[in-house]
């Protein structure tokens, strides 16, 4: 199983459906289980939403590049942008045990990403590009 593709769009909310469609098509081409496909679409959508709403805040919206690489045992998705550096690992986790009436609105996107992906890593390259990598392990076929 080999399927390496990528898409680049400007980091604007109206481009989110195109990015979701790209990930969905990659998953379909790779014959991924529909539940895993939905999860991956959601994870990429959440990250790209953050980049579109916060990543380029105060800046002209720049590119988001989403790369999709499928192998027998895993899917690796890279999301690159040139906005403000942001390591999702530093984001506070929501307190799900808190009384919902006191729960803050928002803050769930990265929580969902971390629940979906087996590994999330962030790197900022010297040229100022942010690279977020998601790894989703695939069930081994018998």
């Amino acid at each position, binding site marked *: 199983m080999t399927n390496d593709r990528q898409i680049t769009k400007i980091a604007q909310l109206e481009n*989110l459906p195109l990015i979701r469609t790209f990930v969905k098509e990659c998953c379909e081409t790779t014959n991924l289980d529909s539940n895993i496909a939905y999860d991956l679409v959601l994870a990429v*959508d959440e990250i790209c939403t953050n980049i579109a709403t916060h990543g380029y805040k105060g800046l002209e919206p720049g590119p988001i590049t989403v790369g999709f690489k499928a192998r027998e045992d895993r899917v690796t998705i890279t999301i690159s942008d040139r906005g403000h550096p942001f390591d999702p690992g530093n984001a506070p986790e929501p307190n799900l045990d808190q009384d*919902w009436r006191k*729960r803050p609105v928002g803050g769930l*996107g990265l929580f*969902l990403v971390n629940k979906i992906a087996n590994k999330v890593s962030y790197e900022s390259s010297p040229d100022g590009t942010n690279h977020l990598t998601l790894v989703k392990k695939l069930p081994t076929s018998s």
Partner: protein
Amino acid sequence: MSVTFTEEQITDTICKISLDGTLDAPSAMSIEDEFKAILMAKSAQVIVDLDNIDYMSSYGLRMLLVGAKTLNSKGGGLHLVAPNEHVMKVITVAGYDQMFPVYETLKDALQALGQ
């Protein structure tokens, strides 16, 4: 891809809001003010029908939480109905199934509300 909603008064104290479409960030942002304004006008039980929602991200969850808080502050309550399996998973992972009742069907919701 966008989302629309329709409102139906079922009884004096029960209202149903049916959402239709894709509940991602831009579509949730496009209706959240109107959605909240409708709930502000209610002091009742509001059933949000998710049957025709094919996709929901955390922005959809955010809109529902704002709605639930709005209703709660006025003595009402939010009830979710008929999410598909993917939407239900998002609801569950976020712990929202512990926050408001989620029913498989409208009939189940109405029964629980004494109808």
